[in-house]
């Protein structure tokens, strides 16, 4: 059974306590969002997600989207839920008030995002894509474009898409073929086919604003010849009433493994009218402005799926009676003890829990940086935040979605046969979560981004924003009577990370394949050290809180146990990635292609 209650206590711990000392300073411009306000928003979001979105999740999966006469229909209940979502102001939660948004900090909005991902990932994609399109438009659009389109997108009345992929090119955008012919009125006619376009067409909003990558007639070959165009589904008039239908049609929807309530469209642009966004041939830059925030958002999807998989598993483990505890009967009145008494079930539950809490803590840190990048009063802190985001974006994207995948698989395992049949809704999590490892840059690409670009950039400058606080924390707490032991474990992993980093930097210089061969292992190691750092900090806080006496003692006690589990059980295998990293590329690359 799909069960969900937003982990608000943990979210608030991350928001209010854990990252207070992150050095980004007091952020400016979020004065309206004090702790009480934040708590209230989280409560309201929980209600919407739990009571409106979750009930549509499994039915939506079963029903799926359909295309009728070139019009895409979302599952029953989606349009109404979307309306409710927009009316609550959730579409523009983190959007600047300048465009009619709420102006909430990312650190808060990411929590809400996690909730919607947990409860209905398919649904979340519609506003999610709009958010991404707004980021590109805000960064690269003309003043007129921004003033006209952003308010309509911020309130959710219009949604957005990002049209990149074509049948023959996904990761390698240099091969893109869609054409843009300049017209005398300054517009362009866009012609070409796009695939895998999320929210490419649907019945939730009045209009859809496509951001399309295409080539100008004289554009250079490769990625340096790609421009970005704004192509509305309906040509809007100045008073926002809708004019002609633009020839930008969904020709089919993809039949997918999961995420079935999200309309993934094949799009045909047949001389559709559009306008240039940003400078000519700089479309990829504009796309990356969006891509970076989207990558963090996709990471949150992994976390969201992990959370609901965990909660549903906890519910099942307490409810399902099977076998007897090895340490003596725990449920003498029943025919058997609940699953939760069994160590191996515990192993799974604790792993899921630790992954979720670790990812959430790290995501809170990265979200703080997303806020600090613009809102820190100190230029140095803003720069550090940028470095940190650059480093952590691929980590959040790949690690969170990999762990989300592992967690949803574990949920199936824990449910046994009941996890494998459809009616319980558990296998849906695994199917839905799977795409997050693939889209917005496959996880292998994320790892390459980390070792190939983020690591060597400016002689390791991005690393500093992460390595220095961790190093300082270890130095300051290695002899701490309460957390010294786990800090010792952290130190060991951090040492392995430092050695791995130096190894990759050195090897990668002379042989980029060496760095690439180590990339995925390295990303995981770095991510686990980051989670470990968060857990160690959390443990320190928990000890302090318990010593001073708090109402919700169990929260902190649980945090200590989860942290301990992480250091006992999860960090060691991640640390061992170092062995794999150091082994080099040979056993990966030696096999002749013919011998496969």
């Amino acid at each position, binding site marked *: 059974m799909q069960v969900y209650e937003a982990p608000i206590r943990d979210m608030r711990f991350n928001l209010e306590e854990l990252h207070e000392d992150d050095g980004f300073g007091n952020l400016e411009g979020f004065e309206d969002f004090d702790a009480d306000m934040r708590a209230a928003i989280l409560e309201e979001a929980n209600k919407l997600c739990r009571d409106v979105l979750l009930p549509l999740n499994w039915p939506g999966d079963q029903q799926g989207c359909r295309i009728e006469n070139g019009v895409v229909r979302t599952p029953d209940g989606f349009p109404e839920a979307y309306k409710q979502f927009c009316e609550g102001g959730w579409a523009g939660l983190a959007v600047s008030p300048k465009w009619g948004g709420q102006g909430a900090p990312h650190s808060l909005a990411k929590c809400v995002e996690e909730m919607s991902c947990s409860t209905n990932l398919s649904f979340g994609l519609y506003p999610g894509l709009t958010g991404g399109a707004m980021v590109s438009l805000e960064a690269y659009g003309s003043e007129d474009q921004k003033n006209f389109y952003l308010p309509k997108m911020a309130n959710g009345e219009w949604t957005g898409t990002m049209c990149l992929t074509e049948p023959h090119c996904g990761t390698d955008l240099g091969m893109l073929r869609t054409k843009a012919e300049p017209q005398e009125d300054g517009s362009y006619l866009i012609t070409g086919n796009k695939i895998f376009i999320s929210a490419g067409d649907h019945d939730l909003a009045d209009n859809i604003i496509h951001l399309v990558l295409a080539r100008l007639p004289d554009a250079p070959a490769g990625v340096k010849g790609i421009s970005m165009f704004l192509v509305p589904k309906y040509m809007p008039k100045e008073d926002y009433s809708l004019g002609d239908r633009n020839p930008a049609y969904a020709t089919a929807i993809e039949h997918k493994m999961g995420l079935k309530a999200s309309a993934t469209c094949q799009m045909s642009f047949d001389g559709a009218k559009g306008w240039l966004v940003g400078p000519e041939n700089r479309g990829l830059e504009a796309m990356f402005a969006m891509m970076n925030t989207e990558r963090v958002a996709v990471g949150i999807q992994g976390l969201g799926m992990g959370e609901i998989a965990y909660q549903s598993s906890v519910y099942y483990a307490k409810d399902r009676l099977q076998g007897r505890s090895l340490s003596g009967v725990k449920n003498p009145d029943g025919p058997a003890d609940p699953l939760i008494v069994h160590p191996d079930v515990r192993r799974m539950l604790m792993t899921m829990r630790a992954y979720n809490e670790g990812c959430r803590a790290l995501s809170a840190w990265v979200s703080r940086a997303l806020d600090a990048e613009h809102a820190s009063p100190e230029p140095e802190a803003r720069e550090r935040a940028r470095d940190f985001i650059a480093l952590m974006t691929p980590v959040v994207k790949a690690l969170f979605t990999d762990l989300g995948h592992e967690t949803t698989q574990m949920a199936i395992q824990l449910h046994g046969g009941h996890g494998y049949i459809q009616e319980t809704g558990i296998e849906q999590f695994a199917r839905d979560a799977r795409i997050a490892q693939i889209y917005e840059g496959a996880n292998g690409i994320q790892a390459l981004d980390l070792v190939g670009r983020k690591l060597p950039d400016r*002689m390791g400058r991005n*690393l500093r924003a992460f*390595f220095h606080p961790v*190093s300082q924390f270890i130095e300051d707490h290695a002899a701490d009577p309460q957390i010294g032991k786990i800090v010792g474990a952290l130190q060991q992993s951090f040492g392995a990370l430092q050695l791995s980093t*130096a190894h990759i930097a050195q090897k990668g210089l002379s042989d980029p394949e060496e760095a690439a061969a180590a990339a995925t292992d390295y990303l995981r190691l770095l991510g686990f050290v980051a989670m470990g750092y968060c857990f160690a900090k959390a443990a320190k806080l928990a000890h302090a809180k318990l010593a001073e006496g708090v109402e919700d003692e169990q929260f902190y006690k649980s945090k200590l146990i989860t942290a301990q589990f992480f250091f006992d059980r999860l960090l060691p295998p991640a640390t061992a990635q170092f062995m794999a990293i150091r082994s080099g590329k040979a056993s990966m690359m030696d096999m002749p292609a013919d011998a496969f």
Partner: protein
Amino acid sequence: MPENTQTKSIKKVCVIGAGTMGAGIAAQVANAGIPVLLLDILPKDGDNRNAVAEGAVAKMLKTEPAPFMSKRAAKLVETGNIEDHLGKVAECDWVVEAIIERLDIKQSLYEKLEAVRTPGTAVSSNTSTIPLAQLTDGRSDAFKRDFLITHFFNPPRYMRLIEIVAGPQSDAGTVGMVRDFVDRQLGKSVVDAEDSPGFIANRVGTFWIQQAVNSAFDLGVTVEEADEIGGRPMGVPKTGLFGLIDLIGIDLMPHLMKSLTSTLPADDWYQKIARSEKLIEDMIATGYTGRKGKGGFYTMEKGADGSRTKMAKDLKSGEYRPAARPGIVHGSAARGDLGKLIETKGKVGAYAWAVLGPTLSYAASIVPEATKTVVGVDDAMKLGYNWKMGPFEMIDVIGAAKLVEKLKASEYPVPPLLEQVGDKSFYRIENGKRQYFGTDGEYHDVVRPEGVLLLEDIKLASEPLLKNGSAALWDVGDGVVALEFTGKMNALDEQVMKLIQQAIPLVKSDYKALVVYNEGSNFSAGANLGLALFALNIAAWSEVEKSVAGGQAAYKALKYAPFPVVAAPFGLALGGGCEVCLNSDAIQAHAETYIGLVETGVGIIPGWGGCSELIDRWQKNPRHPKGPMPAVSKAFEIISTATVAKSAAEAKEHGFLRHTDQVTMNRDRLLYDAKQRALAMVDGYTPPEKPEFRLPGPAGAAALKLAVESFRSRGIATPHDEVVAEQLAYVLTGGNTDPMETVTEDRMLKLEQEAFMKLARHPHTVARIEHMLETGKPLRN
């Protein structure tokens, strides 16, 4: 070529003509420690009859880059005028004439010289255009015997080329004497030229400039594009062509053209391409003569907000517009693959070929007319125009046969030498020796003058004794090995230290001595900062600490090795590059050595023994006051301000070199001299005693702190300068020592390491290192 049969030597020189060239030549003679008489004409007005020459010397003392290597050298220049002091020429062994390029005036000067000079005194002209035969017309046979042309390049201190032209009557002994002097004493590389117009370098160089300018106008290539195509990809300094013309002065172009067109035969190819552009004439007429004038093909425009924008001249409109970075040369064509470059499609290939094809063909046409061998042309262009490759080396890159084919297709002339070489190359390596293709169709060994020993040659004939990614060890003969730095920019790192540690037992058992030497563009600018920054960024403190300790251990192992160690620095020897010299038994420095402990610039202090070594040198300097404080103060002053000596002579003044250390003027002789110096120390060699220091301790540190505070309050020192200076003072004063105690060298190294680590972890130090790596300039935080 005249045989070297001289028995005389040059003990005093007279330079007549105190213009840029004459004064510069006089300064270089003085730099060699030789007294020099500098004469010029009487001033137009004023009472001081020596004003012209005196003014030239005074001006040189303010010129950057400095013509003099030290203030002391300037004192060796005696000034005078040709009316009153020409008689003093009798005291001189060599007279260099460097007056205006007018035959009649030169001839009349020679006539006067003939009357006053001592027979056997060499007389040479620095003419760049007038044939020797005309210069000596009407002079006695005795004068003709002692006469030759010595063509220096500007500025004489820094340009290594000298072209020597001997006449048919020139005495081999006299020529040999001058030749030997300019080589060994003035440090110049002699290229023998024939008595033909423009000699070698300017003949090819002028043709090249003309052809490159013509082609830019003809093909509609912008100055930035021309410089991108014709600069680095061709191995020409990055100024490129138009940047170079700006540097030498646009107004010089018509002069060069006139002198060559008036002296070259009518059928010379240059006559056909010589032309002037209206745009360039207008620039000269309106004072846009390049860097020395109001601007050139490039200029820096200051914005209202104080920002500076590089502007470039549009060759079509004649207007300045913001300079572009064309970025049009890609791949191997951008990295010296000339064949690829000239075959590139579009204007890159078209312009490259329009410049290179004719220039290389022309260069091949002047052998043996202008100089007997292809080596002469290549050396002249490399040393006189700072080309990375000479024309014949470039032809070898393209392939002579391919070049001929392409020349024919473009209907350019193909000189006989190119036809003759056919599908062979102008150079080849045979039995470990470099050989060149002679006009006789045979290959001949490239022969080095006696006393010239080059690693470049040794490498052709042998394998290194030891080698890793950053250093190598070579057997340079007679029981001496050379330690070579081989990393990028000769940066010092763990690998270098590892190789030093491996070298020591090897030298101990199988060899007699070691020299630290290399043939990069600089000796070493110090530790690999990029690596250090990376380590700091990943908080690998223990690694950084290890690299400090490792460097200390390696350098001390060198210092106390049971054999002599001689360091042979040249160019930049900074930070760790300076410290390896300080830890050697002796230094044989090239005159152009720029040595210093510059660590404070990046927020750290010398960590490989530089602090204690510099104190040791000042404490042992007999001319410096004794006691714990004076040497410490001096070392503090030098290190805290990151002082860099601007010559080997200045390095002695700062104490980087001991007074017993020696200087080699000619770069090519450095290894040989260092080797001889090391061999001289072999017999009875004992490693130095470990020094012990009596240092002022906290009281001394307090005094130094006061000084820094005053600099800080006057705005000379920045906040982080103060932090760095405090650590430096702590180390130099011996930490918590007391003037009554002695501090061991090991203790000093420990102090260095501790202070180094404190600073290395400081965020402002990290910011300094990062800024230095990104901009090449120090951050003043």
